[in-house]
């Protein structure tokens, strides 16, 4: 039996539609990885680099949305806001110049991988690869340290996304 619990609470139409689109992206990602693996490629060798580069591209977009990229407070006003906050059912625990802490209570990517019938260990691995996108985003903001704590994919109730201002 799966150790993962991942139940959505918000069912607004726009949230459901965005979740569906993210699920499609997660399905697509898994199939690309699966076909590459069948042909002998190790996920760590190619997928991480690709997803990290994608994150860097989106990190640059976030950079363009803030005036001062060293301000964690400004970053907290553009990252994890709007519909995305509802899609991942995010709770904001801290949002100031020192800390930006988010808990994600639902993950549509995990949901897609569960629907494909993948084992927990593989979902955990896929989650960590997908999070290379967030690591890529964070790499464009050298004044903050990004830490991924517990995750839903590991069987925890929430994903802990943490940004700390570097001392």
């Amino acid at each position, binding site marked *: 039996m799966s150790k993962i619990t991942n139940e959505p609470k918000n069912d607004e139409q*726009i949230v459901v*539609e*965005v979740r569906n*689109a*993210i699920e*499609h*992206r997660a*399905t*697509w*990602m898994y*199939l*690309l990885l*699966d*076909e*590459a693996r*069948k*042909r*002998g*490629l190790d996920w760590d*060798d*190619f*997928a991480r*680099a*690709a*997803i990290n*580069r*994608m994150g860097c*591209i*989106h990190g640059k977009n976030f950079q363009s949305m803030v005036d001062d990229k060293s301000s964690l407070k400004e970053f907290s006003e553009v990252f994890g806001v*709007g*519909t*995305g906050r509802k899609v991942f059912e995010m709770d904001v625990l801290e949002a100031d110049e020192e800390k930006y802490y988010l808990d994600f209570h639902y993950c549509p990517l995990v949901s897609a991988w569960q629907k494909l019938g993948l084992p927990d260990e593989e979902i955990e691995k896929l989650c960590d690869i997908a999070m290379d*996108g967030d690591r890529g985003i964070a790499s464009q903001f050298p004044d903050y340290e990004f830490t991924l704590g517990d995750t839903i994919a590991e069987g925890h109730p929430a994903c802990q996304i943490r940004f700390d201002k570097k001392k």
Partner: protein
Amino acid sequence: MKITNKPTINNVCVFGLREISGRRASTIALMIEEAKELGLDESFARRAIYRYGEFFGKAFFEKLNDPTDLEEFTKYFGTDHNRDIYEMETVEATKDRLHIDFHYCPYVEQWAKMGIPQEEIANLCDIAMEGDRAIGDAFPAFKFTLGNTIAQGHPVCELLFEKVDITE
């Protein structure tokens, strides 16, 4: 021909969904590039996207009361949120032909933003369309044809489904 790809429908929902499509576009382009550096050609991606289309084709086939009825197919194909994302226009819808034009493509937009050359964008588009080919293949009573595409520099992507005789 140079690519022209300008959206005219802009609202919060469509914008959010297009952004996700853009991420999907960058993911596939970068995965193909990284795999190529390790000596793997694009066939893995074609197969992956085809499998993706097979899931939807099968579910779609099972949803229809009569999967040989093109008019019933027309009621569902391209009628959801994708209609606004791709700015679809139904050019012809009869019992024998369904012709839909896509006036905008968020994938092409993302690939262009990444600075990918046009010939490569056309190839990436062709890989992405494996999904639609798989959906077409799930319906033996219809023949799917991808005509001109935005990625090739045409003003629209032309998707055509035609009824074929499967009784013989």
